[in-house]
């Protein structure tokens, strides 16, 4: 598996690095900056698809097909194959299966047929599918395009390409890396309300099915139903949260605050004394907000579809977006972040279920002792070794999110890149690394991280630092958390399985569901409550939203 991924890495790197010399590049798109190539390859290879480039502007059709689509198919299949191997290990099968055979099955029997069908649906809805690359169009309102230096009317460049093919597997494989920089908000990627529905359906399809597959393969269908329900509750929670705060609440940035607020805070100069901080009034903007927060939304879909999509996309680690997350109301933006922090609400291809397995192990280990037996999962006793591996896998994620966020928050790397200082800027950095670590790939945007072509005249500030940091985070958070659980499953599977009795903790009951839900919520809250408070919550409650 690792060898295969290394080959993928080299191949992807070559395709992108040699882009200027490859065919299907009539626009003569040049090479990306090396750091961006590293970031993009790492991110596509790992099913993350965080894009620090803009697909339509920076990639040729050859790169889109041989780098983009290839990676979208294969990287999703990798995660799935690992999950299958873990299940086999838990079943105490004698062999974990052949990685390539599993890959082949996933690709041929699952992705290709469904992707074809969905792709066709997209084409019907108006998504382009062509090897042509760009049309030069004179628009109906020439004045809107402005004029060139020579006084000629500028033509609008409309980039097209094999969008439908890209799009279908992007959603199915919960990849999320768009053909266009705007991702699913782009009218060609996601032309109609119906295509938006298919988009949403496509990204949820496999992650949902995988949980049930887990139960069927282990012959514990009811157990997987319990897990499914827990995931469903969490998913519904994030969607409702996101829709509530985005659609039903006014944008605090527009409401402003009518009068100045004063707060008593401890005086740092005279210990024990009080000090008054006065925050000036911010006039509200005359915007009708009864439809909710419309900023950054596609009017094709309306406000709630954007919020719903954003919550779902991180729950299933897809990462495609159909609205600007930067413009979500700050509290609403917490929902997609929670999706990435927990990283087990259905989750990406296989990986979400693997993460859930870790929570199951930890939950059973801690609370399972309360029935008075050594904790067991699937009849196997959970010992020091298994717990150690589970904990390592679980530790990587917060470490990879919080350390870089802290680093970038306090250095010029982060301070230069954010579009709004203060809590909102912190949210942007936090989201960037959450997305990288969760292998999600959705972008909060607002960070000036696009480097663009190697010869770009004005790369985004600290683009190199973000490219490299996010690339490293992606790689570590992808491979450690799948290798450790694989080893854990192998150790567990090798143990003797003890029969179920009256005294055994059952894993298919309501009680177990509550236990699991409680474990996830408490561990999640403990890990991320402080940053949530400093980022989105402070952003939302603060008197100068969006950083003033």
């Amino acid at each position, binding site marked *: 598996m690792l060898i295969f991924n290394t080959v993928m890495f080299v191949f992807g790197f070559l395709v992108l690095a040699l882009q200027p010399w490859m065919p299907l590049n009539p626009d003569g798109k040049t090479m990306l900056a090396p750091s961006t190539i590293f970031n993009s390859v790492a991110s596509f290879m790992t099913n993350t698809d965080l894009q620090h480039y803009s697909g339509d502007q920076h990639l040729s059709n050859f790169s889109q097909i041989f780098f983009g689509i290839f990676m979208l198919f294969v990287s999703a299949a990798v995660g799935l194959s690992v999950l299958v191997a873990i299940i086999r290990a838990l079943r105490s099968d004698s062999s974990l299966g052949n990685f390539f055979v599993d890959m082949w099955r996933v690709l041929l029997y699952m992705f290709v047929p469904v992707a074809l069908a969905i792709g066709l649906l997209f084409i019907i809805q108006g998504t382009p599918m062509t090897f042509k690359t760009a049309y030069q169009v004179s628009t109906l309102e020439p004045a809107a395009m402005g004029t060139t230096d020579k006084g000629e009317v500028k033509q609008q460049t409309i980039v097209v390409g094999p969008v439908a093919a890209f799009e279908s597997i992007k959603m199915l494989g919960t990849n999320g890396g768009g053909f266009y920089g705007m991702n699913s908000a782009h009218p060609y990627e996601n032309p109609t309300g119906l295509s938006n529905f298919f988009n949403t359906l496509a990204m949820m399809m496999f992650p949902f099915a995988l949980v049930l597959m887990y139960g069927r393969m282990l012959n514990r269908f009811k157990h997987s139903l319990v897990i499914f329900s827990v995931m469903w509750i969490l998913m519904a929670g994030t969607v409702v949260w996101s829709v509530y705060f985005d659609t039903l609440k006014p944008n605090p940035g527009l409401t402003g605050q009518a009068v100045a607020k004063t707060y008593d805070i401890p005086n740092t100069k005279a210990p024990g004394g009080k000090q008054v901080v006065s925050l000036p009034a911010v006039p509200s903007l005359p915007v009708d907000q009864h439809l909710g927060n419309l900023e950054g939304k596609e009017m094709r879909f309306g406000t709630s579809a954007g919020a719903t999509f954003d919550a779902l996309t991180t729950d299933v680690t897809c990462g495609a977006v159909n609205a600007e997350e930067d413009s979500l109301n700050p509290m609403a933006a917490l929902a997609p972040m929670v999706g990435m922090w927990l990283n087990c609400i259905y989750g990406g291809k296989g990986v979400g279920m693997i993460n859930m397995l870790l929570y199951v192990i930890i939950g059973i280990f801690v609370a399972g*002792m309360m029935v008075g037996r050594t904790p067991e999962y699937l009849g196997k006793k959970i010992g020091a070794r298994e717990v*150690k591996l589970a904990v390592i896998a679980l530790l990587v994620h917060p470490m990879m999110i919080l350390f870089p966020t802290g680093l970038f928050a306090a250095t010029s790397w982060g301070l230069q890149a954010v579009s709004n200082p203060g809590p909102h800027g*912190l949210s942007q950095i936090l989201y960037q690394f959450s997305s990288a670590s969760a292998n999600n790939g959705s972008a909060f945007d607002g960070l000036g991280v696009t480097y663009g072509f190697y010869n770009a005249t004005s790369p985004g500030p600290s683009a190199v630092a973000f490219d490299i940091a996010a690339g490293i985070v992606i790689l570590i958070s992808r491979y450690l958390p799948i290798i450790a659980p694989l080893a854990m499953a192998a150790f567990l599977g090798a143990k003797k399985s*003890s029969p179920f009795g009256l005294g055994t903790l059952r894993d298919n009951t309501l009680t177990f569901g509550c236990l699991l839900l409680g474990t996830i919520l408490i561990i999640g809250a403990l890990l991320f409550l402080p940053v949530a408070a400093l980022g989105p*919550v402070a952003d939302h409650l603060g008197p100068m939203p969006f950083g003033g």
Partner: protein
Amino acid sequence: MKKVAKTELNLREALSPSDDDMSIGVSGSAEAALKSPMGPQTPLRRFKPQRLIEKKTALAALKQAFVMLRPDIQWKNPVMFVVEVGAILTLLYIVRQALGVVDSQTPITYFIALDAWLFLTVLFANFATALAEARGKAQADSLRRARQDTPAYRLSPDGSIDENIEEVSSTDLKPGDMVLVKAGQMIPADGEVIRGIASVDESAITGESAPVIRGAGGDRSGVTGGTVVLSDWIVVRVTSGSGDSFLDRMIALVEGAIRQRSPNEIALTLVLSAFTLVFLIVVIPLWPMAWNAEQYMMGYLGLKEPLRSLGTDIPTLIALVVCLIPTTIGALLAAIGIAGMDRALQANIIAKSGKAVELAGDIDVVLLDKTGTITIGNRNATTFLPIGKYLPGDVGHLAALASAADETPEGKSIVKLFVKQNVTPISVPDSANFVPFTAQTRMSGVDLPDGRRIRKGAADAVIKFVEESHGQVPGQLSLLVDSVASEGATPLVVADGTEIVGVVVLEDILKPHMSERFDRLRKMGLRTVMITGDNPLTAATIAKRAGVDAFLAQATPETKLAYIRKEQAGGKLVAMMGDGTNDAPALAQADVALAMNAGTQAAKEAANMVDLDSDPTKLIEVVEIGKQLLITRGSLTTFSIANDVAKYFAIIPALFAGTLPWLKVMDIMNLHSPTSAILSAVIFNALIIPALIPVALKGVRYRALGADALLRRNLLVWGLGGVVLPFIGIKLIDVIMTSLHLVS
């Protein structure tokens, strides 16, 4: 000398009166034969349940708590080690501030209070561990009183009892030495009785004042150093040298000297260390993030200096780490383990390792001996069934006559039943000649002066006797015998010369309340299996009456071993209780093996627990102690982690209140000030440790409700309670501190 040998011979005879269960016969008849005129001595000690915290142990523990601050000792508890490092760092910070090196935003008194509570947290944790150890030590000390330097009378290597007996000190004895111990002397070392039989007062180790019988051969040949021979004499072959005796090892065990951590405890320590690491990961990046917010607010408000918050205050961040890491369970984990061993000890069970106690909670199958565990030692006569012209009273009278001199429990029970039914004592003519039981004839009886020969015994033996006397065997006899056997009882046929008189029904008497105990085991998720030497028909009936789940009939050492292996192959954990040498292989194979102290040395060596009371039903208590141990661990861990939710709500608003004052909305407890919020959280975190020491020492009660109900209950109490309680506690501490004007 010769006379002594004769005594021994007589005793031997008395030892083997019944055909099916030799060991039971030993204790029954020999005890009667040796009814000591000396009476029981005053017991040396008894493991009476201690008060939870005694003044003396508490003081010793307090001292030990300070000793354990040494980093090399503290290191063994990673969670508390982090707290100690934090406390020392804070101390350095205070010194720097006192010297004016750093300019802090908060008064130095706040840091001093903070640091004091951090150190107190560590001390409370150490105290909990030390207290549990001290309680164990107190037990050990009273055991040690029993182990004195006693004189021993060593025989010459050939083992003959002659003039070559030399008096040596018990500490000089080596394994293999043979010593003679007479009435009134203390047995100098652990060993096995190779000659003689004696009643022994084992109250020194069991606390049971009634003397027990120890004799050569059989399953009750093991003796323990420090116990006292009350009557007769025995020759003991020493099996363990000085300092390595059973009692020595027991003391060592109890003192925690060889207390190794059990697998589950190690795994939990790992998880706790990981949680500690997690919270370091969470808290460290808070500093730059808080700094980011300070810079931003400075810019926004146009201030010259950043608006400082506690979020960039190192001691406060240390306090946050300490509050978040699972200090509660980290502090009590060791104490819980020691207390588990201690509880086993109070039930008079010596566990050879903490692992064995813990494993007991996982047991799926319990193997119980029928005799002595499920039934009262011996079979009792319950009915007299006549044949032909005879009446029940005739059968009773003749059977009682035949049993008048029979000292076996069965014989005595026949007499007792007859006397009870007829209210007349039986009178046997003085010149009557008793025919004792032998393994060859398999019957016993009496020859009366008038020539009548009355016999009672196994059906085939008595039939043979009647036929040899040219008597008639009625056809209905075999029917009667079979019907008695099929009901789980043993038929004894009574004959008067040439005529069969009737059948005495001997039944196993179930111990009272056994089926309730089995119900309890079933509710715990355990399956009970009865082991018996009886035939399957009898075994099935008794099993049904007793309410056990399964039985193993006609058990031999081989079948027992095979049965345990079969269950283990199915992934089950098997507990077994045994006493005999022939139990040793099965005991060694079982996952939890409880040997009786009265049993042989081989059995005790093979087992991983020894029951000093030799009470076979102890297995149930062992299982409960094991479950309780795990439940206590799980509950306190859950509680500890659930606590963090409230602490977050106290600390996060306090951390950033200086910079982002609107986060005060998150302060749902409405605490007085940032510093009081943080101090309250730290104080709550520290105080909860001593508050839970009693729970750790006594253990969370185990209720046989079934896993699901138990989990629900404990999740509600410790999980939900763990979330809610600190909200109340922290608020309370805040209110008290504010009303006393301790905080600004």
